[in-house]
């Protein structure tokens, strides 16, 4: 299996990389957008339950056309199926599960993550548009581990790993790990600690694309992913 070199990971490759770290028998909540693809790339033999905020505990694959049931949806309004052993609870019970620390990993998209773990992922400050927070704050504050999947920089090249967030916060000091197209980064009491850097990229180059100091873990590794076509 050949690996991509120097080319930043695409969105599905970022999801793939994140998926490799999901432990067997975890309960995982996947945020809208990129994180949803994580379900497609679990390591073989790992038995994982996916929870959705609307109360589905054990989301299965998307429903095929002949299996669509408009009452069986996930938090993204996608028509889904149930995996074996799935249960369904009401919203108050679902958020009790989330807030109570029963979700092993919440994987979220983000606009910015600060070196202290602060997360901004819900409000882009688009003028006059109504707010939409949904369950983002609950997941960020409630899950045992919060992981973020996001591009390392904005389209304009501004860093998304920052000293402090400029956009409204989703939760304070919550992010544990970040998967970007360029790196895998832990958020620690000492700030950002890089675990992996895109194959062929130098630590110095990664630092220039980051808005806060990076520490490189002893024995940090090159980041690569198998070829996967990006999502549309």
């Amino acid at each position: 299996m050949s690996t991509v070199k120097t080319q930043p990971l695409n969105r599905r490759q970022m999801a793939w990389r994140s998926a490799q770290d999901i432990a067997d028998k975890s309960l995982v909540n996947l945020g809208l957008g990129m994180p949803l693809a994580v379900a497609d790339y679990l390591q073989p033999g790992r038995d994982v339950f996916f929870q959705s905020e609307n109360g589905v505990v054990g989301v299965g694959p998307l429903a095929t056309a002949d299996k669509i049931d408009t009452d069986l949806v996930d938090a993204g309004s996608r028509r889904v199926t149930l995996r074996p052993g799935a249960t369904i609870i009401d919203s108050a019970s679902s958020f009790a599960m989330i807030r109570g620390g029963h979700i092993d990993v919440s994987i979220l998209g983000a606009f910015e993550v600060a070196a202290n773990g602060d997360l901004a992922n819900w409000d882009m400050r688009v003028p006059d548009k109504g707010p939409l927070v949904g369950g983002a704050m609950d997941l960020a504050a409630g899950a045992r581990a919060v992981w973020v999947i996001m591009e390392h920089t904005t389209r304009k090249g501004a860093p998304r790993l920052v000293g402090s967030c400029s956009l409204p916060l989703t939760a304070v000091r919550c992010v544990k790990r970040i998967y970007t197209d360029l790196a895998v980064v832990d958020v620690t009491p000492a700030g950002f600690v890089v675990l992996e850097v895109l194959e062929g990229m130098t630590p110095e180059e990664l630092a220039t694309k980051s808005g806060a100091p990076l520490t490189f873990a002893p024995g940090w590794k090159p980041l690569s992913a198998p070829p996967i076509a990006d999502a549309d």
Partner: protein
Amino acid sequence: MAIDKRVKSAGDALADVADGATVFISGFGGAGFPNLLIRALREQGTKRLTLVVNSATHRYSLTHELIEAGQVSKVICSAARGAGKDLSPFETLLKAGKIELTCLPQGTFAEAIRAGGAGIPAFYTPVGVGTDLTRGKEVRRFGERDYVLEPAIQGDLALVRADTADQYGNLTFRYAQANFGPVMATAARLAVAEVRAISDQPIPHTQAQLPGIYIDRVVLAAE
């Protein structure tokens, strides 16, 4: 007289709703929207409503009809963003200052309603601490973490979509249809359910998902 909560029509079920009522509306992601009842509330014409609804703008819910009809003065929700870049009717009213909005984290929204039905006036939660959505609210430390005090939400009316009901108001829900319906029914002075089918026999206790004592009126919603 034997308890029998079945009423003939959605109009009958909502005939006595008053202006200024606080109204819960169930539903999430296309499942559990009580659209027959929402339509009836629009036709009934009640004004100055406060809506407590997860999303003010979901395309499958008729909530937006109440808003567009000018019947709503306030919305409590976790989502109020219209699709696309253009402003939705709700966003236009919001911009014009003609509608009031409280946005809550979805779990706080659900828990506050649950508290409203459970005799809990307020509870502490870690969610939203340090964010715009809890600005001005009391923050308190328990152990090594900060929590914010959130008040319960109670209402005058709950509109709930379920799958089946019996004469006692016991309800079943299909798949993810329950979502906010059960807690909304507990927190409202009057709870009305629309259902796909009404069972002639009592729903067995092993199947009922909400005790009928929380439901006051049941309407059949022909599909």
